[in-house]
């Protein structure tokens, strides 16, 4: 079967398979099956957690599987299975390039007071320069973090040294959530 023929068949098969939880991919004239993950509901507790006093980071990777890190400076659920988060524009170029190429998002949050920690994995949807409302979310996050950090002995105002203007906001669909709170047996996938 030649490549063109496989492409034609794929168009039909993808339509049929998308509801069944797998997708066929064409690579070097062969067809392989890849299971994909449906969107996952973020429960109310996790929605609240997302806006807590959490350290938070973004993991992405490029086409050569080189991982990349970005500090996240605000995040919240934007729907029942989507999250919006904000990063400093000056550090965003590689992350945006990676997300445009492969869409894979990994976001970790850990509460700085009780170490409760979750990782959210999913697929990039879009990004844009942060709106005034999203910039206010960043300011709110920094203010909450500053208050919490003072309580654990960190000098007042240090957190504002993280780059936080200008910013971009990224939205992604959550497909998997893992608990990562440090304890024996941690790392489990959270069920929807």
């Amino acid at each position: 079967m030649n490549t063109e023929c496989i492409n034609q068949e794929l168009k039909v098969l993808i339509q049929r398979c998308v509801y069944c939880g797998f997708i066929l991919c064409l690579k070097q004239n062969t067809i392989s099956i890849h299971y994909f993950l449906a969107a996952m509901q973020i429960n109310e507790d996790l929605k609240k957690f997302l806006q807590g006093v959490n350290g938070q980071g973004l993991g992405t990777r490029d086409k050569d599987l080189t991982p990349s890190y970005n500090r996240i400076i605000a995040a919240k659920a934007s729907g029942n299975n989507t999250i919006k988060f904000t990063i400093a524009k000056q550090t965003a170029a590689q992350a945006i390039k990676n997300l445009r190429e492969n869409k894979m998002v990994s976001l970790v949050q850990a509460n700085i007071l009780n170490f409760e920690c979750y990782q959210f994995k999913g697929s990039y949807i879009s990004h844009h320069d942060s709106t005034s409302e999203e910039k206010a979310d960043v300011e709110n996050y920094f203010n909450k973090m500053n208050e919490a950090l003072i309580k654990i002995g960190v000098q007042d105002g240090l957190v504002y040294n993280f780059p936080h203007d200008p910013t971009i906001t990224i939205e992604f669909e959550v497909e998997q959530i893992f608990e990562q709170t440090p304890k024996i047996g941690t790392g489990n996938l959270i069920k929807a």
Partner: protein
Amino acid sequence: MISEDMKIAMKGIVPSTMSTCNSEGVPNISYISQLYYVDENHVAISNQFFNKTIRNIRENPLACVNIVSPEDFSMWVLDLKYSHSETESDLFEQMEMQLEAIASMQGMEDVFKLKAAEVFTVLSINKI
């Protein structure tokens, strides 16, 4: 490569995060207890659980870690490549003692038990 300023950021006061990626290209990001200074071109992380981070670096040796200075919140991002594991060495014993101290402070002595010191070569450093 690794400056004196960076060593202060590697004390574990502000936790670091490490990004990895498995052989299928799925990224993972996780908090780590501490990034240990080995020498000016090498760092190490503690392997306590043989968790996803450790499994990923066995498949794909590349990693990316951030460190934050507790003095002024300066941040560095280090690109790393996994080199080797140590289970019996001065480095392992030193890391074990430091990990016990961190665990004790956080009341997690039963959680933080060192299995191996995972040593990485520093490929590049960017100050944010």
